[in-house]
């Protein structure tokens, strides 16, 4: 291996990552605001009415990004958890813990906005349909992960136990994603797909993509904020945290 390769271990140390994260957070907030304003303007002010669903379809500008994020965040969380199990790096477990509450909130928002869309469109708030049920299980997985970690005092053990739960739960993500194909569900199929042209007007598509980008930036900003707090808490006995908080001897 060449000696010039980036020393990833350096960035994996909380001491280095903490100030770096602090510098990045305002930029992610700024991007979240820009994308959010652009996305909501496009989706709520400019996009035309949907022929079949009327104006109520605009809920999807919130519902689809929230649902995407709830799944993506789970995958990222499981990735960090696996990294932590494999290499025992301190940062990995902290990242996984920092992501879980945000993922849980997006899973909740996905169900909430979905229910408010379902009532006028399907005539019901909820059905025990494959898509809806697997998304509800995702919310329970997040809550289970958070509760399990909170129940174990030693953070390293909490990381390991949480990581195993997170990895077992990954099986649910493809189930959510493909549920509309595998089973006959009330939930409609994917509106945006990588393999074929989107089945919606360009303006609607742009609104949705911009809102999704805003949710991405929001999630990164919030996760970085939370991971910094977790770092202070877990590293409170180290010199760098003492120095940072102005505890100079």
């Amino acid at each position, binding site marked *: 291996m060449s000696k010039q390769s980036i020393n990833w271990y350096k960035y994996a140390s909380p001491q280095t990552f903490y100030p770096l994260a602090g510098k990045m957070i305002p930029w992610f907030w700024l991007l979240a605001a820009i994308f959010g304003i652009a996305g909501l303007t496009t989706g*709520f*002010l*400019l*996009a*035309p*009415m949907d022929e079949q669903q*009327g*104006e*109520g379809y*605009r*809920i999807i500008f*919130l*519902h689809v990004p*929230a649902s995407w994020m709830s799944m993506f965040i789970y995958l990222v969380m499981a990735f960090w958890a696996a990294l932590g199990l494999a290499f025992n790096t301190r940062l990995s477990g902290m990242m996984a813990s920092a992501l879980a*509450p*945000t993922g849980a*909130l997006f899973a*909740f*928002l996905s169900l*909430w*906005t979905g229910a*408010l*869309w379902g*009532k*006028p469109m399907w005539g019901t708030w909820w059905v025990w349909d494959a898509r809806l049920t697997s998304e509800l299980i995702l919310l329970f997985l997040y809550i289970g992960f958070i509760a399990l970690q909170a129940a174990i005092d030693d953070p390293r053990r909490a990381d390991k136990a949480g990581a195993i739960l997170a990895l077992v739960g990954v099986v649910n993500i493809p189930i959510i994603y493909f549920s509309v194909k595998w089973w006959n569900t009330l939930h409609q199929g994917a509106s945006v797909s990588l393999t074929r042209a989107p089945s919606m007007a360009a303006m609607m598509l742009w609104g949705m993509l911009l809102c999704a980008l805003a949710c991405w930036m*929001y999630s990164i*900003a*919030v996760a970085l*904020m*939370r991971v*910094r*707090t977790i770092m*202070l*808490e877990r590293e*409170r006995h180290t010199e760098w*945290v*003492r120095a940072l*908080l*102005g*505890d*100079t*001897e």
Partner: protein
Amino acid sequence: MHWNSLAEFLAMGKHGLYVWGSVLVMAGVMLAEPMLIRRSRRRLVERLRRQYRAERSEARAVSPSSSSGSPA
């Protein structure tokens, strides 16, 4: 611009309740989350500072001669 008036925008066809119910809850959650993180961080910092101070004064009480350095 798709709308002719503010009233029309707020009514959202017949779906105002559902659309604005989604928007308000999502906005509320996305405002509350960072605020709660900031608050818990502030509390943690206060707690740690108190803890460090207590540890230092305890250390001084145990061995007053060895830690004669004045706090910066």
